[in-house]
């Protein structure tokens, strides 16, 4: 029997946001949560369950990788595990962004959305 695969196709919004969050810098779990909240203007606040199950899925798919635990100066020296985007992850994030950009172009063509080019 094969293990039930977690789905990454289509890429869930939370997973995409995590990839985007890690595009800038390596972050730990809480850092990812804050970055995602920031880049969505607070609309998406990932809870620990969703966050870590997405992280697990992304790790399994080798879209992100785990780094050694290190100290986080901002949190009283607590040791934390950091995550980094892999090149496969960057590629997937890019293709997902392109897919969305395509969608956007269609929306504009149909006059659902106004505005300039992305």
């Amino acid at each position, binding site marked *: *029997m094969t*293990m*039930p695969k977690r789905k990454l196709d289509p890429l869930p919004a939370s997973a995409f946001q995590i990839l985007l969050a890690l595009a800038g810098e390596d972050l*730990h*779990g809480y850092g990812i949560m804050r970055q995602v909240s920031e880049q969505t203007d607070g609309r998406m606040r990932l*809870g620990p369950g969703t*966050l*870590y199950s997405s992280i*697990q899925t992304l790790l399994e798919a080798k879209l992100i990788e785990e780094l050694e635990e290190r100290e986080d100066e901002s949190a009283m020296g607590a040791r934390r595990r950091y995550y980094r985007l892999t090149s496969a992850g960057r590629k997937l994030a890019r293709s997902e962004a392109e897919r969305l950009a395509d969608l956007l172009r269609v929306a504009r063509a149909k006059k659902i959305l106004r505005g300039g080019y992305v």
Partner: protein
Amino acid sequence: MSEKIYSLLLRLYPSKFRARYGNEALQLFRDRVRDEKGSFPGIKLWRDLLVDFAISLPGEYMHSRGGLAEGTALYTSNGVPAFHVLDDKRLPTESLVSGTLLTLLALSTFWILLGYGGRAASIVHFRPSSEGRGVGAPGPGAQRIGNEIVPAAPSIEENKRMYPVDDAERRRVVRSAASLVRQYYAEREKAEKTADSLLEHEKNGDDDVLADGHAFAALLTGQMREVSYDRHLTLEYSEEELPPQPAAPDTEGLTRHETSLTNQSCTFERVEILSGNIGYFKLNTFPSASLCGKAAESAMDSLNSARAMVFDLRENHGGDPAMVMLLAAYLFDHPEYMYNPRENTTKQSWTHSPVRGNKLADKPVFILTSASTASAAEHFSYDLKMLKRATIVGERTTGAAHSGVWHRIDDHFGMGVPETKAINPFSMVDWAEVGVEPDAQVKSGEALKAALRMARTTQQEK
């Protein structure tokens, strides 16, 4: 408090997920608690968490089924291998939906209880006093000096700071706790079972989610009580470094204590007959019977002609069990068994009743209590209530049984292990942690008025 709840909720996740991400999830929870300020941050946080549980739990379980995929080949008695084949079907949608709904229902009930019931529940902590004496009943070789007010440890709710404990310390604490229980716990069979269970939990990784000292101590206490059903068995975490294992009190301290007792007229604040011939005895400790026995006897003599007795223990935080026995003796006309979890059941567990010339043995007795009535004062109240010899008026008491002998495990962890076995003829539970429930529940400030009213009514009926 809220972290404890969250770590309990985390246990709903499959063990594999917990083992890998439990600590990180807990850390994230703490980070949010620390960082999120403003109006109703707690409500927002818990709303997010509950939604998060509802969304992520079913997914995790669907995924974690894979962990069972290693089929095993067993040889049956006739030598033919039998294979266990795991079902390859996905969970049916109905199960997922009903699972989600059930989770939501359970979590929202929990949330409501958290909001409304949380205030009522309180956990009483004890820890050793900073003077270096043990808590509660002193062990062999130690001596009890009068009353001792043991400050309650701040609850986690009040103190949002977290005290991290690493894997190595957790392992060390579990092993030490198991050894101490095996070595000192009064009942051999229970001791073995309790110690085994602690180690078993550790082996199963049940202790791994909790990285906070208080939460970890509470978890281990829970594990021990699951097996021993003994509320006197307790493991505590102290933020400050614990003093070295307490030694017997020095003679200088003892003398100081004696002088202070004499200066305070043995803490007997008021001994008088109130109108309606009601005896009123307000004592703020149960002082040492050897020092204050005479004073206690003369106090009781002066109240001998009263038609009802009121013992005011609202400011009484405990003291000498011998004084409890001495005073209780006046309330019976025959020797009566007084249960005390701190001492083995012996001849001393019966009152020396009747007391010569005493007329109080058949008079109605009222005991006034407050939320800070503790320890020996609870001993007095609990037994007289259970013997139906007194009516308790006031508030539920502290719940300080202190029957364990304190053992220091390391700088921050210590445990109370009961080394005695007293027979409780009344009930499975005593006042440890739950306190003594009053028969008439009134605010402590109004307890005297209420008791006097009851005493006068009782007298009129006679």
